[in-house]
């Protein structure tokens, strides 16, 4: 049975001439944290709004547990979402905010106290949320997402603007929700954050799906470990390395980036051919690099690199 699953097929959203989301196909599975990763403006939030039936797709579809969101009668029991922590009426208390949401989905009132306790807001439950810090608002938003004990949870950039304690708390919460067998989809533009939280990644850029892969696989793929070499006669060394099957690029900073041949082999070759080396270094590309390589060319807002 298709439970706790989000599935997009050819999901697209255009605003006039701009394509925000471009034919996305993916399936978010239970029991793991799926990171929804991409630069700002890549279409993550638009996709999340379409999952929740708030924005309507221009074409394609996205189904929650096999159904169109707008056809779900009691959605908070199936999917809980934190989109924007500040999207609350500032004059309402935390308790009343949650109570109104609970009432809308037939959720018994004691559950409101339970989720307030779970996110640590019991002591401020009867304060107006206008006076809440961003961290408290995030906790309230998460309480709202957990209210219906849903099998699927959606978090849009949940750690933005949080202090380290708050970040750790959310990270731990997401991991434990997934460990319980729930489906967790969390968006972020920070690879480093995803490296700590996600098991699986959906990488998007300019609205297109760039990768649907496990974290380990992405690192392995992006890695293609290479050797960085500085040599006095770099053109001659590059030619000689290519003869033995290496791929060599000459970087503007004067280094040779060599793949396909290990550092030991390069050292031996250099000694045999009488080269003077200034540097011979193994480089393991990081997750950040892997992500950057995937998304380069699909960054919507980028400042010119200073010369």
């Amino acid at each position, binding site marked *: 049975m298709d*439970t*706790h699953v989000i599935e997009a097929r050819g999901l697209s959203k255009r605003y006039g001439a701009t394509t925000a989301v471009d034919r996305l*196909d993916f399936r978010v*599975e*239970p*029991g*793991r944290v799926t990171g929804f990763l991409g630069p700002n403006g890549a279409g993550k939030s638009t996709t999340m*709004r379409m999952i*929740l*039936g*708030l*924005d*309507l797709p221009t074409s394609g579809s996205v189904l929650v547990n096999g159904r169109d*969101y*707008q056809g*779900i*009668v*009691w*959605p*908070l*029991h199936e999917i809980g*979402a934190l*989109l*924007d922590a*500040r*999207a*609350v*009426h500032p*004059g*309402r*208390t935390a308790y*009343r*905010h949650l*109570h*109104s*949401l609970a*009432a*809308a*989905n*037939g*959720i*018994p009132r004691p559950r409101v106290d339970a989720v307030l306790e779970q996110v640590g807001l019991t002591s401020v439950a009867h304060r107006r949320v206008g006076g809440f810090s961003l961290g408290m608002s995030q906790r309230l938003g998460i309480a709202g997402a957990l209210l*219906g*004990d849903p*099998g699927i949870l959606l978090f849009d950039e949940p750690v933005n603007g949080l202090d380290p304690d708050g970040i750790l708390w959310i990270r731990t919460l997401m991991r434990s929700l*997934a*460990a*319980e*067998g729930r489906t967790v989809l969390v968006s972020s533009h920070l690879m480093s954050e995803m490296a700590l939280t996600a*098991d*699986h990644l959906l990488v998007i850029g300019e609205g*297109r*799906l*760039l*990768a*649907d*892969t*496990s974290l380990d*696989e992405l690192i392995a793929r992006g890695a293609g470990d290479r050797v960085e070499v500085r040599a006095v006669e770099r053109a001659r060394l590059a030619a000689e390395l290519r003869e033995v099957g290496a791929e060599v690029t000459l970087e503007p900073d004067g280094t040779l980036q060599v793949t396909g041949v290990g550092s030991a082999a390069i050292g031996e070759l250099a000694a045999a051919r009488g080269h003077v080396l200034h540097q011979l270094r193994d480089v393991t590309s990081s997750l950040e690099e892997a992500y950057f390589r*995937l998304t380069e060319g699909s960054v919507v807002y980028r400042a010119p690199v200073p010369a």
Partner: protein
Amino acid sequence: MSAHVTEPPRRPEHPQVRTRLRPRAGATRLGATARSEWIKLWSVRSAPAALAAAVLVVVVGGFVLGAGYRSGWASLSPGDRRSFDPTFTSLRGVQLAQLFVGSLGVLALTGEYATGLIRTTLAATPQRAQVLAVKALVLGLVVWALCTAASFAAFAIGQSQFTGPVPHASPGGPGVLRAVLGGGIFLTLVVLFGMALGALTRSTPLGLASLFGVLLVLPVAVQLLPGSVGERVDPYLPGEAGSQLWRVVPPSPHSLAPWTGAGLFALYVAVAAGAALVLVRRRDV
């Protein structure tokens, strides 16, 4: 770069969670939406404050205008005395109350759009037209009940001031009971009009400007039309048409009959509400 799609690895060690929480037994979608909107209405200060202000100006208006006419009766011209409408006079606080009630209606919608709460609301209840309709039903009933009570109170207080030579109305008089009930009905239509315009504009300043532009500014603008055009158009304006319901003596020979006028106002409200219901289903939030 082309998308590289791999089969996601299964994690058999993580069985699917069995969520235990279920909707309350006997909960209905409509009932749940109504409960939610009821809680929302009373859990912010602005709504009870606006409702209290509306009731207060209607009731206090009955007293102030009643006392004013009694003390100033001697100085009124014979013409003014002839056209004196004791029922309407005691209910004139309704004119001021429409500001509070109308703003409340606009803000009931635009407040949710301004904060982004509308997304949370519609994620919890994706049946958008139902949310809008139930919101209108809840707020409409509350306004109707409170403002009808306030109209009766204002009528009673106002008539108690009309003593001696000042004519007073009794509830059994022709059109009197209808006019008193009309105060509550008119204000209910105003709150619904405000909600519809709030849903259409999704912006507090635009919503308020369109509501009060139509109810208060348009009649003034129409007076500026050349010749008798203004006079003839005026009775068909929403506010003017609707206010016939709480008058006993028509203000002008062109005025519409009370229920005709109220029906026309209701029609304007229905058109705006219909447009809002269609658009709320189509638009992204």
